[in-house]
């Protein structure tokens, strides 16, 4: 009974000009609600960042993660794409931390952030072609290493065709399981081989299956969502402690020969960066 009354009411309204006002009112309500929700989310993220900063000495919010302007990061790594319109760094936090390099604790500058970029999407509607922009976000952990890496090395998940062995590219290593899961790109093949010893290959297979690892200049970039999170920190900041742990695990697993090949000496530290 109530349903039929509602239908009658809608039919009445549909005939009237009030329908326009109802839709306009609904749109305004949806818009305001989404803005309030976004503001609430931003506030919660900033509170979580504040909580995280208080846990680590010297950590702070960063506009330029590890002293790198977004313009220097864009397009340089798979996790920092340029997109087609806007791009940038959000919710960056970090500071000095101890990473194990060739068996020695070394203080390095680290940063954790969300990289966003907007990609153009073309669609077709009754009124012709439509262009819209979709935002892509990536969780990124950056570490400023005490050495300079002369040639870029990128390790990322292998494509679906690559997994079947049809289009496998990049450097191939001894382990077929590793070659199936990861695509390794690097011009300096000797350095790639020195980096990816049997132990690191196994660590990547066990713990970094869907993640990206890249080395360029003095930066180590670990991208992708970690498998666990800190439930006491809300939204994406809850993933930052896990990314911090993963970065430590990754550095521990990198063989000493790789660091030696890059000219690292025990006791060598990275200069820490203070945000402007």
């Amino acid at each position, binding site marked *: 009974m109530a349903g039929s009354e509602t239908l009658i009411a809608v039919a009445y309204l549909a005939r009237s000009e009030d329908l326009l006002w109802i839709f306009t009112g609904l749109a305004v309500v949806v818009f305001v609600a989404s803005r309030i929700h976004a503001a609430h989310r931003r506030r919660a993220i900033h509170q979580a960042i504040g909580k995280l900063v208080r846990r680590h000495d010297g950590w702070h919010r960063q506009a330029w993660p590890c002293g790198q302007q977004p313009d220097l990061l864009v397009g340089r790594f798979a996790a920092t794409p340029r997109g087609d319109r806007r791009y940038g760094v959000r919710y960056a936090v970090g500071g000095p931390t101890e990473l194990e390099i060739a068996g020695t604790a070394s203080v390095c500058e680290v940063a954790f952030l969300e990289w966003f970029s907007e990609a153009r999407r073309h669609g077709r509607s009754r009124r012709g072609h439509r262009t819209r922009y979709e935002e892509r976000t990536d969780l990124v952990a950056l570490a400023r290493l005490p050495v300079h890496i002369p040639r870029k090395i990128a390790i990322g998940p292998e494509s679906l065709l690559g997994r079947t062995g049809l289009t496998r590219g990049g450097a191939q290593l001894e382990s077929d399981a590793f070659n199936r899961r990861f695509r390794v790109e690097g011009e300096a093949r000797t350095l790639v081989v020195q980096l990816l010893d049997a132990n690191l290959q196994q660590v990547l297979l066990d713990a970094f299956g869907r993640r990206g690892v890249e080395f360029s200049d003095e930066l180590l970039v670990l991208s992708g969502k970690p498998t666990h999170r800190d439930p006491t920190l809300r939204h994406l900041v809850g993933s930052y402690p896990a990314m911090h742990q993963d970065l430590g695990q990754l550095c521990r697993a990198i063989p*000493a020969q790789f660091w030696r090949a890059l000219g690292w000496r025990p006791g060598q530290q990275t200069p820490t960066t203070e945000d402007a």
Partner: protein
Amino acid sequence: MEPLIIVLLAIAAVPLLGIFSYNRFIAQAASIEATWANIEAELQRRHDLVPNLVATVEGYASHERGVLEQVTEARTRAVASVPTDVTMTDQARAEDALTQGLTTLLAITESYPDLQSDTAFRDLQRQLVETEDRIAAARRLYNLEVAAFERRRQAVPSNLVASALGFDAREMFEIRDPAAEHAPHVAP
């Protein structure tokens, strides 16, 4: 398309595939030679470092004559095993003997604090470890090239090209990895 044209195209494709396969074998063989040349260059560098290392240790620990002579002899055997008429296995065993000798020598040096603080010795030890790192990397690259070559040499249909055109089996180069043993210990 006429069936005759299809048959002719198929017949023409066979020698083309054969040429393509042959050229890939040639490229792989060249790559194996290049990576082997890298190994030899690094082994040569290690051989060149040994006399200086022995002389430096002798200055502080001259009474460890037995170990010093053992290293010198192992180095002589390793240098003698470089020519092409020596099998890869014999060369690998000679290098292993040199690695063993150097491991003993470097273990002894830990009892001589003056030697450990000698800049020339530390520099030589660092150069030795870096050279051995490069030997290990070059060896892995060589073995990867050989593995890829052998995979093609044994797989169908490239095995037909390999057997018809005389591409022989290549041997892996397996030696002990000395860099980890010879790296200076770092206090945590």
